[in-house]
C-alpha cells in the first residue's frame, strides 16, 4: 500500500497556517452570534426586563456591531458616579460597559476637564506602585486605565494627564515591565496613554521611554511567541489575560501608527495569528451575564485588532 498520498495529506493538514480568510470567517461567526444575542435580549421580548446598565450595554453592543456613533455623555457621567473598583474589575458589568466604550472610535466629542475624575486619579496615585503590593499595583492599573479613557474620550486635560503619567512612568522602570511571573497587568493602558501623548506632541519627554517600552513588548511577543502573554497578576481568569493580550496587540498596532516602524505591524500580524486558537473557542450564548458579555468584549477587541491590522497592511502594500 502506498502511504505517500496519505502522509502528504496529513502534512498539508498540519502545515495549514492561520490565514486572513480564517480570521474573517471567525469574525463573521462572532458577529452572527452577537446579533443573535441582541435579538434574544431585546427589552420586552418574552417579558425580558433589564436595568439601566444592562440596557446601556446592549445598546453599546448594538452600536458597535452597526458601526454607529457613540454618545459619550452617558458613560462619562456613569464613570464619575460609580465606585472606582467596579471600573477595573474585569468581571463587573460596569467595567465591561466602560471597555465597550473604549473600543469606540466614532464618539461624539465631549471635551471637559472634569475635576471629579482628576480627584479620583489623585486619590489612587497616593497609594499606587507598579512594583508594590497587590493593592498598590491595582491602584496603578486603575489610574492608568482612567487616564487612558480620559485621553481617549477626550474628557481629561492632556497636560494634567501628562503630569500624572510622569508619576506612573517613574514608577515602572523598564526592567520591571516583565518579571519572572510575566508582564505587569494593565501596563498596556500606560503604553497606550503614552502613545496618545506622543502623537499629540505633548509627550516629548516620554519619547525615549515610549520607544523603549514598545521595544520590550515587541521582543516579548517575538521571542517568547506566547499565544496569550503571561501576566503578572493574581487574576486567574484566562479571559482577563486574553483581554489584556488583545489590548497589547492593539497597543503594538498603535506603535506602528505613531512611529511607522513596520516591525510592529509584522509582530501584530503574528500575534493575531497566535491568538486565533483561543478566539475560535469563544462561543457567545444568549445569556445577559457578565461572563457572556465579557466574551462579546473579547470578540470586539479581536475584531478591532484584525480590522486595524488589515487597514494598515493594505496601506503599506499601496506604498
Amino acid at each position: 500500500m502506498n502511504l505517500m498520498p496519505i502522509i502528504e495529506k496529513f502534512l498539508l493538514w498540519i502545515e495549514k497556517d492561520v490565514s486572513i480568510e480564517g480570521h474573517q470567517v471567525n469574525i463573521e461567526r462572532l458577529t452572527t452570534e452577537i446579533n443573535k444575542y441582541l435579538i434574544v435580549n431585546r427589552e420586552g421580548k418574552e417579558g425580558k426586563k433589564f436595568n439601566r446598565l444592562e440596557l446601556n450595554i446592549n445598546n453599546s453592543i448594538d452600536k458597535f456591531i452597526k458601526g454607529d456613533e457613540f454618545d459619550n455623555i452617558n458613560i462619562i457621567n456613569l464613570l464619575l458616579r460609580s465606585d472606582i473598583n467596579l471600573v477595573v474589575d474585569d468581571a463587573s458589568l460596569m467595567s465591561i460597559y466602560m471597555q465597550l466604550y473604549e473600543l469606540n472610535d466614532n464618539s461624539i466629542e465631549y471635551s471637559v476637564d472634569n475635576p471629579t475624575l482628576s480627584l479620583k486619579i489623585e486619590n489612587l496615585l497616593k497609594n499606587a506602585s507598579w512594583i508594590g503590593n497587590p493593592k498598590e499595583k491595582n491602584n496603578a492599573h486603575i489610574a492608568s486605565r482612567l487616564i487612558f479613557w480620559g485621553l481617549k474620550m477626550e474628557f481629561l486635560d492632556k497636560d494634567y494627564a501628562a503630569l500624572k503619567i510622569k508619576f506612573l512612568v517613574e514608577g515602572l522602570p523598564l526592567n520591571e515591565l516583565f518579571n519572572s511571573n510575566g508582564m505587569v497587568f494593565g501596563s498596556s493602558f500606560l503604553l497606550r496613554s503614552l502613545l496618545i501623548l506622543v502623537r499629540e506632541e505633548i509627550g516629548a519627554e516620554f519619547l525615549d521611554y515610549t520607544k523603549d517600552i514598545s521595544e520590550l513588548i515587541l521582543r516579548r511577543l517575538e521571542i517568547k511567541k506566547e499565544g496569550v502573554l503571561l501576566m503578572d497578576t493574581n487574576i486567574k481568569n484566562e479571559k482577563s489575560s486574553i483581554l489584556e493580550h488583545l489590548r497589547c496587540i492593539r497597543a503594538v498596532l498603535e506603535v506602528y501608527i505613531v512611529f511607522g516602524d513596520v516591525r510592529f505591524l509584522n509582530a501584530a500580524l503574528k500575534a493575531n495569528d497566535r491568538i486565533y486558537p483561543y478566539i475560535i473557542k469563544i462561543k457567545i450564548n444568549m445569556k445577559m451575564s457578565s461572563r457572556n458579555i465579557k466574551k462579546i468584549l473579547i470578540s470586539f477587541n479581536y475584531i478591532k485588532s484584525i480590522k486595524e491590522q488589515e487597514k494598515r497592511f493594505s496601506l503599506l502594500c499601496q506604498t
Partner: protein
Amino acid sequence: MSNLRVAISASVDSNLYSLLVTQGCINLENVEIVGVTALKTLTVKRLRFEYSRVGAKLFRKIFNKYFNTKASLKSSPQNQAMDSLAMDSGLMCKSLKKLTDNNNIPFLKVESPNCKTSLEFFKQHNPDIILSIGSSIIKKPFLQIPKHGVFNVHMGILPEYRGIGVTEWPIIENRLDIGLGVTLHIMESGVDTGPILMKKNISLSKSDTLVSLESKYLKEMVNLMISGVQILRDVGLKAAPQKISEGKQYFETHKRMKEFAQQRIPYIANDKSIF
C-alpha cells in the same frame, strides 16, 4: 610564517554553507583547520529548537530528507545555482564527515556549540579563530576559546539590520540606500552586536526573487568568510565596534510580509545599481 589555526563550528553535516567554507579554508595556504564540529540532527533538544523556529514545517523537512527521496532530488534553478557554486569551489563531498576524513581534520558531532563536549573539543585544539556557521546563540565560554574571537557572517548589513529575516526587511522598508548584504563580525553574547570586520553589499535586480537571492547570499557569505580568514592570515583585521543605536533588531517576517517583499522587488530594484 606560522599557520593560522582555524576551527569551524558548523551547522548540520550536509549544510552547503558549512561545506563550502570548510572547502574554502582547506584550499587556503598557511591556514590549518584544527577541528570541525557539526550539530547532531535528530536530538530531542534540536528538534524542539527547530520546531520553535519553523513550526509544523519541520515535519515536512524531516519527511523530505529521510523518506521522500524524490522531493530531495528535485532540481530547481535554485539547487542548480547551489550545485554550480559547489563545483566552482572544487567541493566533491556532500558531507562534512567525509570532507574532514579525506583531509585528516578532527571532526566531532555535538548537541550544541555550547555543550561541554564541544567546548572541550575546541579548547583541546587551541584555535586562533573559530568560524561559526549557521548556529544558534553562542555563549561566553565558547566565545572565550579562540585568540582572535569567533567569526560570523550575518545575512544583513550591520549595524542597521540585526536579527532574523534581514534579507527581506530592507525591501519591506524600502531601504536600498542601506542595501542588502552580508557582514563579517566578531560574535558577542548579544544578537549580531559584535565588532564589524567587513561588509559586502548585494545588488537587487528586477528579476530577483526571495529564493534566487538565497544563492546570491550564500555565495557572498562564503566569499566574505574566506576573505576574512585570508586577510587575518596576511595582515590582520581591524574590528570596528558597532553603534547599536544606529540599528534595530528584526524578527522573522510574517508570511504576508514575505509576499509583500517579493511583490515589491520589481518596483524598487535598480538593475543599474552597483554597490
